[in-house]
């Protein structure tokens, strides 16, 4: 069974067809690449997927259940979590607090709990803290736990965003251009992190410009062009597809 199944997704903004009949599937614990030229609708697709926008048409099924369209928090709690192209960490909170926020949906402490500060609540809080520290270590930010997120380097903020997303306990992690603006070494580190996340049983859907980088990572690639699905297949198939080469690889690619 597919983990994520998006069928015939369309989205219009004031007469501009941003997405037209886009379909995509992700199998459990697999890595799928989503590529396409600038303005092809990749980020819009992510926004529809994660509930920031509501699709005009189409269905989204996640682990056999329909995804609650347009409700980001419920989608996140269902196990589909994202990062953002223009990094959106909570800039004034510490790195640790950022990750602790990620645990919100998995913890229970309510108003009374906070006021009474019972032993159960204290235990929960301790577990969140330890879990967050664990995750920071996992992405290589253990030294940065007390740093204010906004002051971290670009690459560190990207990894912090991933740690925060992992804290929600996702089954599918959607990364929006995780290596944009990174150099070769950093790209290597990110690839290694992505493979480790997959090894932990979490599927990934990755938007990327750099086809060569994504091709070495993922099992399947979907190509978007002008808001429509252009091709779908293994990296080798995609790289050999003449339509893709014309639409996308024909342009000078960077990286």
């Amino acid at each position, binding site marked *: 069974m597919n983990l994520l199944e998006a069928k015939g997704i369309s989205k219009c903004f004031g007469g501009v067809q941003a997405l037209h009949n886009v379909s995509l599937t992700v199998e459990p614990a697999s890595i799928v690449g989503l590529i396409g030229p600038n303005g092809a609708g990749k980020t819009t697709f992510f926004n529809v997927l*994660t*509930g*920031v926008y509501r699709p005009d048409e189409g269905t989204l099924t996640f682990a056999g259940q329909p995804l609650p369209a347009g409700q*980001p*928090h419920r989608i*996140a*709690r269902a196990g589909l*979590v*994202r990062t*953002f192209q223009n990094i*959106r*960490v*909570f*800039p*004034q*909170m*510490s790195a640790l*607090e950022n990750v*602790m*926020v*990620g645990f*919100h*949906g*998995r*913890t229970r*402490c*309510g*108003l009374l*709990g*906070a*006021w009474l*500060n019972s032993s159960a*609540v204290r235990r*929960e*809080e301790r577990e*969140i803290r330890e879990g967050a520290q664990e995750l920071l270590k996992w992405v290589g930010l253990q030294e940065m736990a*007390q740093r*204010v997120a*906004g002051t971290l380097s670009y690459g560190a903020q990207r990894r912090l965003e991933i740690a*925060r*997303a992992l*804290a*929600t306990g996702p089954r599918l992690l959607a990364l929006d251009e995780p290596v944009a603006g990174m150099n070769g070494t950093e790209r290597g580190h990110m690839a290694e992190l992505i493979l480790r996340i997959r090894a932990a049983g979490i599927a990934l859907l990755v938007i990327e410009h750099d086809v060569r980088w994504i091709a070495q990572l993922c099992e399947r690639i979907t190509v978007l062009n002008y808001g429509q699905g252009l091709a779908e297949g293994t990296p080798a198939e995609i790289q050999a597809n003449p339509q893709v080469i014309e639409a996308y690889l024909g342009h000078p690619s960077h990286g």
Partner: protein
Amino acid sequence: MIACPPRFKFPWMLLGTLILPWVIEGLLGRGWVRILDFALLSVLLAIGLNIVVGYAGLLDLGFIAFFGVGAYAYALLASPQFGVHWPLWAILPTGILVAASFGVALGWPTLGLRGDYLAIVTMGFGEIIRVFLNNLTAPINITNGPQGITMIDALHLGTWSFARPHRLWGIPLPALVGTYYLFLLFVLLALFLSRRLEYSRIGRAWMAIREDEIAAASMGLDTRRLKLLAYALGAAFGGVSGGLFAGFQGFVSPESFTLQESVMILCMVVLGGMGNLRGVVAGALLLAFLPEVLRPLGGWQQHWFHRVLIDPSTLRLLLFGVTLVVLMRWRPEGLLPSRARAREWHTS
């Protein structure tokens, strides 16, 4: 960089606040103890508004309406208006519930919208409540219109009335000092509850929403519910303060609940430092005493110019306005900011 709540210097501060009314009465006279009592109610209000503005980052310009709702709840349940005389322990929870429901009812339609809409809707709401208070006299006379409700029962617990002097272990306890202790109890409770929240999972979630609502929702935070919670809690604190106000003053009328009062509370929160309890308390005390400090100005003007050129109450409101503008321009984090909030204002 919050790991755990910073520790209060508890015993000393508590001792100070306990002897404060005696010192004030000795130095400045009984009138100032009354002012101090009212100041504590302002502190309570400011703590409530701080939850909404400081923690959750939602601008509420009609906060005084919740104070009004609480005050009228007390007035209607303990006065000859309907001939009912409920005890304090029954009125306050009712007032809290009513005020909190108003908070939810008001917040609900605006939650999906941008923050500035919320500001103007709350502002309108504050005025509308006043229109109702002024006009709900027919078909049944509920609010008694602009005259307001008088002869409200004094604050009392069982047979202990806070409007009368008592004698405790041979020490005379003036009524105003007794009231001070009652209000202080509420303020301390509010501080405690507020502080526990600030350093809890909920406080962290509010902070996240304040910083980036879309990212917060994408991490599984039910932003609508959390914002409503902030609204309801803030309103509840306002309701308690209003109830105590009605019982203390003995009468209520719509004129106590104007936009100017809402702006004053906002000013208290902003002046001390949004999101920081110490700052909020300091700001509230400072501004609650301001009218008393300005009061002699009228007399001085009379003496020097033989007429009052600048009415002290106009001057006070003018100062509130100037304070807000100047603070936002040069010290948006307030006089005693929380560290996180100071960073926020200065890096963006």
